[in-house]
C-alpha cells in the first residue's frame, strides 16, 4: 500500500497527541512551550497534506502554514521572554509554583 493522505494525517495526529500529553503533564515551563511547538508542527503537516492531496493546484494550505509559522515564531519569542521574566522575579519556572494569581 503506497503512502497516501491518511498516512500523513495519522502521523499528524500521533505527533499532536504526544505534544498534548507533554503540555498537560510537564512542570517545566520551557518543556511545555516545546510541546506546544510540536503540536503546531503536527497541525502544519496536516495542512500541507490536505493541500497536496485534496487541492494540489490551489496551494491554500501552504499559505496557511506560512501564517501559522509567523504566529508560532511570535508566540515562542514572547513566551520565552515571559518565562525569563518570571525566572528573574521568582527564581523558578515550575508551572505548579507560579501561582501568584491562583485563587
Amino acid at each position, binding site marked *: 500500500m503506497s503512502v497516501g493522505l491518511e498516512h500523513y494525517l495519522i502521523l499528524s495526529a500521533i505527533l499532536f497527541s*504526544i505534544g498534548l500529553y507533554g503540555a498537560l503533564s510537564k512542570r517545566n515551563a520551557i518543556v511545555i512551550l516545546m510541546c506546544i*511547538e510540536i503540536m503546531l508542527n503536527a497541525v502544519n503537516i496536516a495542512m500541507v497534506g490536505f*493541500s497536496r492531496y485534496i487541492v*494540489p493546484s490551489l496551494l491554500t494550505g501552504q*499559505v496557511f502554514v*506560512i501564517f501559522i509559522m509567523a504566529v508560532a515564531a511570535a508566540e*515562542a*519569542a514572547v513566551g520565552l521572554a515571559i518565562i525569563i521574566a518570571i525566572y528573574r522575579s521568582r527564581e523558578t519556572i515550575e508551572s505548579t509554583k507560579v501561582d501568584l494569581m491562583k485563587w
Partner: protein
Amino acid sequence: MGLDIAFWVLAVVGIAAALMVVSLRDVFRAALSLVLCFLTVAGIYITLSADFLAAVQVLIYVGGISVLILLAIMLTREVQQGSPSNKLRIPAFVVAIIFLGVMAFSLINTPWQVSTVPPIEPTTAALAGKLMSTGGFILPVEIAALLLLAAILGAIVLVREK
C-alpha cells in the same frame, strides 16, 4: 517507492524524537531532540512536494526557535532539576490516548476526495503569486508583519533589566 521509504523513515524518526522530548529527564537533551523532530518535519514537507516550506521550516524552526529555546534553558538554571511530571501524568496520558483514538477513527473512516492532479513544482513562484497578487492574501501578510513587530517589542520590554 523511494518516497514511501522516505516517508516511513521520517515518520518513525520524528515520532521517536517527539517521544524523547516528553520522556527525557535532561531538558537540554529534550531540546536537542526537538531540533531533530523539526528536521524530520522539514523532510515530511519535501515528500509532500512543498519545497519552499521545507526551506522555511529549516530556517525558522531549526535555525531560529530552537536556538531561542536553548538560550532560554541556559538562562534559567533548571537543567539540574530535569523535567519531572506533575500529578496529572496518568490523566494526561489517558486524554492523549483517547484523543489519538478518536482522531484516527474519524480520519480513517472519512471518504476523502483525493485529487489526481499532479502537484505544482517548484512552489515558490506559485506561493508568491498567492500571497502578493490581487485577490490573494496581501492583507494577512501586512498583519503578520505588524504582529511580528509587536512580538519583538514585547519580548524586548519583558526581558529588559529594570
